[in-house]
């Protein structure tokens, strides 16, 4: 957008230019500024509740070496794996059916729209009342958090498959089953994968939220405990670790998504 008119010789950009054009230096710079501001703020005005950047880094390292954290990780992630697994196994077929059958979709639409904007956390008390503070309520909440995204995206995926492709398949004598396996499902796959990735993000959110709001065990429990004990660096360290896990999982999902649906980008 900065191009100015006039003759200019075409030349291979120099090394300095190429470094400046890459993203990494700017990312590092942004991070350094963030860390520096944090460090100075915490040292000058921090007090007991706000650890400095370096204290947080140290505490994070310390936590990563502690058995307590890994035990909490294990407990939290049980709910994540189970809940998210159920959401995928139930959500993808449900979404596909809604995408194919107009009447079902028209009836379900209003509920999906409500569920998409409703803060699910508000039902946590009901869950606890019905199944207690154990694993079950955490699993159910993770499922509820993630399934809507999966259903909605799978439905959209099936709906957006070009009707001309279905017609084409029919013209070659494809049976209903072949239309499904050769056209509808492959065509919907990118959107389904997107739904699964977004659903995973929400599943992690659900896992953390239920522990923070009601069932204070595992990772969420650690946060509450460190806060109660005014162990600010450990509190911040735990948050860093939770964020890191969320980002790792989501990056992994994004990587899978790219692998499986490379054609969608180029088409």
């Amino acid at each position, binding site marked *: 957008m900065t191009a100015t008119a006039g003759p200019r010789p075409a030349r291979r950009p120099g090394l300095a230019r190429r470094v400046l054009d890459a993203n990494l230096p700017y*990312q590092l710079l942004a991070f350094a500024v963030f860390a520096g501001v944090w460090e100075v703020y915490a040292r000058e005005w921090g007090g007991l509740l*706000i650890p400095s950047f370096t204290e947080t880094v140290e505490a994070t390292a310390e936590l990563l070496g502690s058995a307590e954290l890994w035990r909490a990780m294990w407990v939290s992630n049980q709910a994540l794996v189970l809940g998210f697994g159920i959401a995928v196994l139930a959500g993808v077929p449900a979404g596909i059916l809604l995408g194919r059958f107009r*009447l079902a979709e028209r009836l379900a639409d209003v509920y999906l729209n409500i569920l998409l904007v409703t803060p699910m956390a508000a039902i946590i*008390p*009901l869950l606890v009342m019905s199944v207690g503070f154990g694993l079950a309520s955490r699993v159910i909440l993770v499922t509820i958090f993630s399934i809507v995204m999966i259903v909605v995206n799978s439905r959209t995926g099936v709906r957006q498959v070009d009707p001309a492709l279905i017609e084409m398949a029919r013209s070659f004598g494809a049976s209903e089953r072949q239309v499904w396996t050769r056209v509808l499902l492959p065509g919907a796959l990118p959107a389904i994968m997107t739904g699964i990735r977004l659903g995973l993000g929400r599943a992690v959110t659900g896992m953390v939220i239920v522990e923070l709001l009601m069932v204070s065990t595992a990772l969420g429990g650690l946060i509450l405990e460190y806060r109660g004990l005014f162990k600010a660096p450990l509190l911040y360290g735990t948050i860093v670790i939770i964020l890191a896990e969320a980002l790792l999982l*989501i990056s992994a999902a994004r990587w899978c998504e790219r692998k499986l649906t490379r054609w969608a980008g180029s088409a």
Partner: protein
Amino acid sequence: MSALVERRGATAVRRRRLSWRRLPAAPVSLAAGAVLWELIGRVADVPFFPPLTTVLGRLADMVSSGQIIGSLGDSLLNLALGFGISLAAGLAVGVAMGRYRKVEAALGVYVYALLTAPSLVFAPIFFSLLGEGRGSIVAVVVMYTVFIVIINTASAIRTVPGHLVEMARSYGARETQVLLRVILPAAAPMIMAGVRLGVGRAVTGMINGEMFIAVVGLGRIVTQAGGRFDGASVLAVLLVIIAVALGAVALVQAVDRRITRWVPKTTKDGL
């Protein structure tokens, strides 16, 4: 293609389908859901799933005692503050990211990371920074809302067709004129798509923040009622929350329709 075999009956079938299509699905579906809720609630007879009538009765009590109105006001204030801040900050950062490659390079990954991260874990941090009060709740709302606004604004600005900008330049438009007269209007539909998503997330942030920092608002009532194992109150407040969420989204959609009236219908669905 079994339809072909009975093609003479095709018109009759279509007519029947048409009458189905004319029936408004949402009210029918909601009514069925309400009946089902009432029945299941009565049959099951468990404290965590009271029948609809019980919940509505409790809601009426809570409204007449003034409990709902006060908390609703607090919640809406949290929502308005958080959403307003997110809108201002999100548009500013988003325009900068969309317009200047270096800003995008510096901030892009972090914005994406924070968009997908579980936002509520930041609540304890806001707690330590801003104390146990409205400030922290508003900060949580911002955390939920601002990143989606940034990302949509940035990509909206970036995808404005270059030929429009060139056209404006060819008529001698200055940089600010290009931004205000061409880029922002052309980017408006996609920016508004981000704002629409943002308002939904803002309501979620408001409730989650209020439940965690249980000092004001509807979220606090939920937490307290949950502590008393009072299922009817939780569901009554949940209904209010859903109404707030749908109302907020509808409001933004109305604004959106005014702003993006020029967009042809077919492309609008695609956004």
